């Protein structure tokens, strides 16, 4: 799902959802911008493929955590913008919390001497 140079890091499905929700927490964006932003912020570690990004976006839209509207992009093209809904914001908090707990626990176990 993500790609680093010639290596592939496989993100579990829920993780991509979390990344999308977080990215949209800042401002509404279209799919391209989301994938670019994630790549940028993760210092190119996480490169999201279209093949996973758009199904994820549609899934999130169906769950009601994001909603879409059509707008005009920076280069004057018609693009579909997504934004976080109220329930989406709640979901983001829940999942981010769970993730932090999980990674802290993982770190503890992995750092065992």
């Amino acid at each position, binding site marked *: 799902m993500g790609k680093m140079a010639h290596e592939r890091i496989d993100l579990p499905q829920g993780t991509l959802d979390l990344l999308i929700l977080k990215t949209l927490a800042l401002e509404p964006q279209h799919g*391209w911008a989301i994938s670019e932003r994630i790549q940028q912020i993760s210092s190119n570690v996480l490169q999201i493929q*279209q093949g996973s990004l758009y199904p994820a976006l549609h899934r999130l839209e169906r769950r009601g955590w994001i909603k879409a509207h059509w707008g005009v992009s920076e280069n004057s093209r018609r693009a579909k913008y997504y934004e976080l809904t109220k329930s989406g914001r709640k979901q983001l908090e829940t999942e981010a919390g769970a993730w932090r707990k999980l990674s802290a626990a993982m770190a503890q176990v992995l750092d065992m001497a």
Partner: protein
Amino acid sequence: MLHDLLYCLRSLVRRNAVEDELDDELRFHFEQQVQKHVRSGRTRAEAVRQARLMFGGIEQVKEECRDARGMRWLEDLWMDLRYALRTLRRSPVFLAVAVLSLALGIGANSAIFSLIDAVMLRAMPVQEPERLAQFEVIRADSNRGSFSYQLFTYFREHSQSFTDIFADTSVQPEIAFKGAEERVNAELVSGSYHSVLGLEPAAGRLLNPNDDRAPGVSPVAVISYRYWKRRFALDPGVIGRSFTLNGSVFTIIGVTPKEFSALSRGAILKLPSLYRWPAR
């Protein structure tokens, strides 16, 4: 859950719009990818090729999006239905024959079932219909005969198996309310009719055995609820109104309950059978 359902419904009902949107969305992403490659120095052709590679199969992406939308089987069903309709439209004769056969079959079945339902399956709207029994006279030539009144009274007085017996027969007299004549369906019944059937009047009172005892003296009649509604618009003043029948004056004394009109279909009038019917 509601949101989910609405979303799926939208994707089903406005399928073309949703598909177009998906196409536009993916196309936009593709273009942005191309632009990015062009900006980093590649030619347009090269950029397109690169973008295509990274994009993966676009149809596959669309499929995954469709799956993500859910209701996949419903979409497929819908598509199949439309295909079937298109095909049928091309052979109208076949379609006509199929529709006609179905219509005949369904229509015939419904008609017969309604009839049987009304006649046989619906319980009679009387008290304890399972305890009712019907007597008939069968003559030597296997035709139905009629009971004489004496025979009826004999049965009534001497029967030990039945709590009570009543007699009824149907007639179609012409009655006149203050001169306006109309032909009605009526039943001549014995006084025990209403008590045997266990009915409560909708208005006034119903016949009782006393009405049998005085032949010819101010005879009474009971009308059905339907008749009361249709002819008198549920006017409570109908009790006590009189009409003439064959020269005699009858008084309406009550109305049968709403669910019950008569044993014979459509009869709207009950007259005590002691009334002497002029020989025809």
